[in-house]
């Protein structure tokens, strides 16, 4: 199964759209086409939110994920939405601090790490998304580490402290698997 249909899911405020934007920018740096769409509620925080990122060599016709090949779940509500419909060969990457009830029959290969705890220890709980992104980049090989680092640098380059923490979060995640 290819790994170019990625879902970032959780609840509003977890930086899911931001994470998709950084990975999308990284894909463009590596010369690929991307499309990213999001679904969210009216609330600023707390309700189900997701971003769909498609990465492809050819132009992308339909800009939403049709087959969840890789799913990042940073909340139970997000995990529950996807775990049951994922196919063999796909990857479910979840935050084990937030997702406590796992689906035994889930066909995806599951990777749980305490992303929130790791991010808190690094100094910024909001960087849990990039810890998880590190795991996804390493597991899937859909992007190179260097392209991600360049995208993170471009995003946070003007804010040295934010750059340090987010880069550390990504690298920590990358080294988890």
């Amino acid at each position, binding site marked *: 199964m290819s790994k170019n249909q990625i879902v970032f899911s959780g609840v509003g405020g977890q930086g899911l759209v931001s994470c*998709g*934007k950084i990975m*999308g*920018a990284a894909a*463009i740096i590596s*010369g*690929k*086409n*991307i*499309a*990213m*769409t*999001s*679904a*969210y*509620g*009216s609330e600023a925080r707390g309700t189900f939110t997701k971003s769909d990122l498609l990465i492809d060599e050819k132009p*992308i*016709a*339909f*800009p*939403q994920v*049709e087959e969840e090949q890789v799913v990042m779940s940073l909340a139970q509500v997000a995990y529950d939405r996807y775990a049951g419909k994922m196919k063999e060969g796909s990857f479910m990457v979840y935050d084990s601090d937030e997702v406590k009830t796992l689906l035994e029959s889930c066909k995806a290969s599951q990777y749980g790490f305490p992303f929130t705890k790791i991010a808190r220890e690094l100094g910024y709980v909001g960087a849990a998304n990039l810890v998880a992104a590190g795991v996804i980049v390493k597991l899937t090989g859909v992007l190179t580490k260097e392209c991600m680092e360049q995208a993170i640098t471009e995003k946070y380059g003007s804010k040295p402290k934010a750059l340090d923490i987010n880069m550390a979060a990504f690298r920590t995640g990358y080294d988890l698997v």
Partner: protein
Amino acid sequence: MSNMKFMQGNEAVARGAIAAGARFFAGYPITPSSEIAEQCSLLLPKVGGTFIQMEDEMASLAAVEGASCAGVMGFTATSGPGFCIMQEHIGHALMCEIPCVIVVVQRGGPSTGLATKPAQGDVMQARWGCNGDHSIIALSPSSVEECYELTAKAFYFAEKYRTPVIVLSDGITGKMYENVNLRELGEDELPPKREIAGDPADYRTYNFDPDNIPPLAPFGTAWQTHLSSAMHNELGYSFGAPENADRCVRYLTDKIEKHIDEITMTRSYEMEDADVVFISYGCSARSARGAVEKLRESGVKAGLLQLQTVWPFPKKEVTAALGQAKVVAVPELNLGQIFQEVAACNKGTKLISIPKVKGELLTPQEIIDAIKEEM
């Protein structure tokens, strides 16, 4: 590759407007259009332009009309609920012939509806939202690149035909990110400048000739203008005689409809040998493109006619598509607003409406399932 950017549709709208020469934005932010206002607040001051956050949508379009009357191309952006409020001024701009651009990033309606979810329910509101007979130009982008290109084109048409032009975006297209390489517009793609010459005493604000529309002289110049939203004569003074009313209304329709060939923009995907044809626009055209790819993989000769120009309705291109196909289907995020227009062109081809009003994009599979029995 070097200029490839990761950009959102709404940002591309703002950049397209500025590339075309727009230097004024007045608006009242509303989901899912707010990034257009945000980007204008960042970008316009850098090019000597003006951004104003207004108290409401009616004031927003009034301010844009004012800028245009002063000779500065302006625009506003909103979504369905704000679009309703703007209708009065759209009619005013139509009647007074004030060039301006209104970007509508459609969301679920009626009313507050689904604030954060996409829809295409304002197609008919764009066409007939304000009172009285008239024609209108509405362009519908389906990608980030088209957000840039069609917004720039909207200003071209607005100035050329001296009329408000609507960019009908939607909650998917506006909020979507894609890689784009925005090009510089060619000299001949820029909106025509309002070149006014001759003896100011001979200048007429109106002349009611669809093929010779006088440019709107900016206020404060020697060429005096008088604008009236009542039926008016060449000088812009109120004139309610029956024959003049007839002349005004027919002219407002003719000046768009007589130039339909120039205003119509469509894109064809896999249409050469297609006998299963989708006719769609905006975000639903992306769903249809996905369906075409899947159907072609399974050996079905599917194709897509994408309407970039929604109004005036591209009858000629739609009629040709109907003529070559065994089955035509119209996917859209409403209950068949464009389907009805396609049906009016149809002379016996099997025609299917594929509507969706759940606040979600149609999926390619939903489209394929909808036409399966007809194939």
